[in-house]
């Protein structure tokens, strides 16, 4: 089953075309990494897919349902109450975590399930405790974000996203703000999620990680998908731009 389908996504900022024509399908359980140079439109793609930005043209389809449908070259979004439903389908992990500093770890994880999804406090707490255990954060339950390392904060933000039980989880350069040691602890968590068949799209500069974990890698440049394929295909690509890009990260 296709969790996410994007057809001919276009987005421009002040006349500057950031996404030119992006089409992309993600199946249940698939892990897709998006790589590419800065300014290639990777983050904008995630922001459009998670509806933080409105795309100009194209379809956005979750679970077979249209969040936005292209009509005559323009994206027409579903009505507001209808759109709310789509927030249940995806989660997003930010580069700089964006935890709520005035909430404890536990409250960060339980507040949205309780006050948005209206599940019982008891169940939200049980979910949170399971997630904290899974992510190795049980002893941080009552801590506040400022008391945590960057790696711990990012794991909490992953737990916060998972607590809403999304069908697909997006990561926007989840380790860019972290040093190598903290990076590895976050990557380990993402790897475990991949083993549990969580559907994920990961924008990353961690080439080795993308290679090891992804079912598919997408190379983006200048607002289009230049090439996509299995890690083996991408890393063996003859495309000079890809070779050049990957080569820069290896050195």
């Amino acid at each position, binding site marked *: 089953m296709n969790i996410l389908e994007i057809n001919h996504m276009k987005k421009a900022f002040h006349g500057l075309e950031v996404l030119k024509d992006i089409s992309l399908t993600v199946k249940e359980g698939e892990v897709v990494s998006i790589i590419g140079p800065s300014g290639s439109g990777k983050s904008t793609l995630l922001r459009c897919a998670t509806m933080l930005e409105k795309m100009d043209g194209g379809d956005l389809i979750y679970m077979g349902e249209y969040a936005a449908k292209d009509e005559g070259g323009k994206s027409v979004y579903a009505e507001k109450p209808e759109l709310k439903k789509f927030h249940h389908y995806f*989660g997003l992990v930010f580069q700089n975590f964006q935890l*709520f500093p005035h909430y404890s770890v536990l409250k960060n994880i339980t507040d949205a399930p309780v006050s948005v999804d209206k599940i019982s406090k008891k169940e939200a707490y049980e979910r949170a405790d399971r997630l904290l255990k899974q992510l190795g954060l049980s002893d941080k339950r009552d801590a506040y974000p*400022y008391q945590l390392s960057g790696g711990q904060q990012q794991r909490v933000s992953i737990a916060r*996203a998972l607590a809403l039980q999304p069908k697909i989880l997006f990561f926007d350069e989840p380790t860019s703000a972290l040093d190598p040691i903290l990076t590895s602890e976050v990557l380990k968590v993402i790897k475990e999620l991949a083993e549990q068949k969580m559907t994920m799209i990961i924008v990353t500069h961690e080439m080795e990680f993308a290679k090891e974990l992804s079912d598919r890698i997408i190379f983006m440049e200048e607002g289009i998908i230049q090439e996509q394929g299995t890690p083996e295909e991408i890393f063996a690509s003859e495309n000079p731009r890809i070779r050049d890009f990957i080569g820069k990260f290896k050195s």
Partner: protein
Amino acid sequence: MDFATILQQLGSGMLKTVGIFLWTLVLSLPLGLLISFGRMSKNRLVAVIFKFYISIMRGTPLMLQLLVVYFGPYYLFGINISGSYRFVAIIIGFVLNYAAYFAEIYRSGIESMPIGQYEAAKILGYSRTQTFIKIILPQVIKRILPSVTNEVITLVKDTSLAFSLAYMEMFTIAKQIAAAQTTMMPFVVAAVFYYIFNLLVAVVMERIEKSLDYYK
């Protein structure tokens, strides 16, 4: 007139001073938030109107504003002013003025919030109202508390401006006694009163700041 009598007379004025202070705070803090919303409105016309309002309130003396509020109804519309309007006029004048200052303080706090906090809340499905009340406002309050403390301390001292409408708050009484008895004593008492009042304000505000120290 002995010291005890002076104190007794000033005492009734002190209650009125505290009354002006409390009424102004209770009304201008929420009104200031509403004005800051107007000031930040995406509707250009609304934003400009509120900006003008704030500019007038901050650009003219509070004493003049009090006189306008009090005498305006008569001079402008020929409405007879009753004695009971005096206190109402004072509160209206203070609230309108202080709300403008608070509005700018709220605005500075709200605009300093990282956009990522709004985005994180949106992704998690919070409504706009929930986002503001649960995520944004608590953090804004922590950020603006030092500026609010400054305003509140100024308010304590500004209450003395009510003398311009001959309202019998403490400072008005102090002036009358001083003039009638040719003594400095009422002014000394007044000074001590304002100082202690502000000491209390500082202690209370510090407590509130401390209570928000649990996060950074």
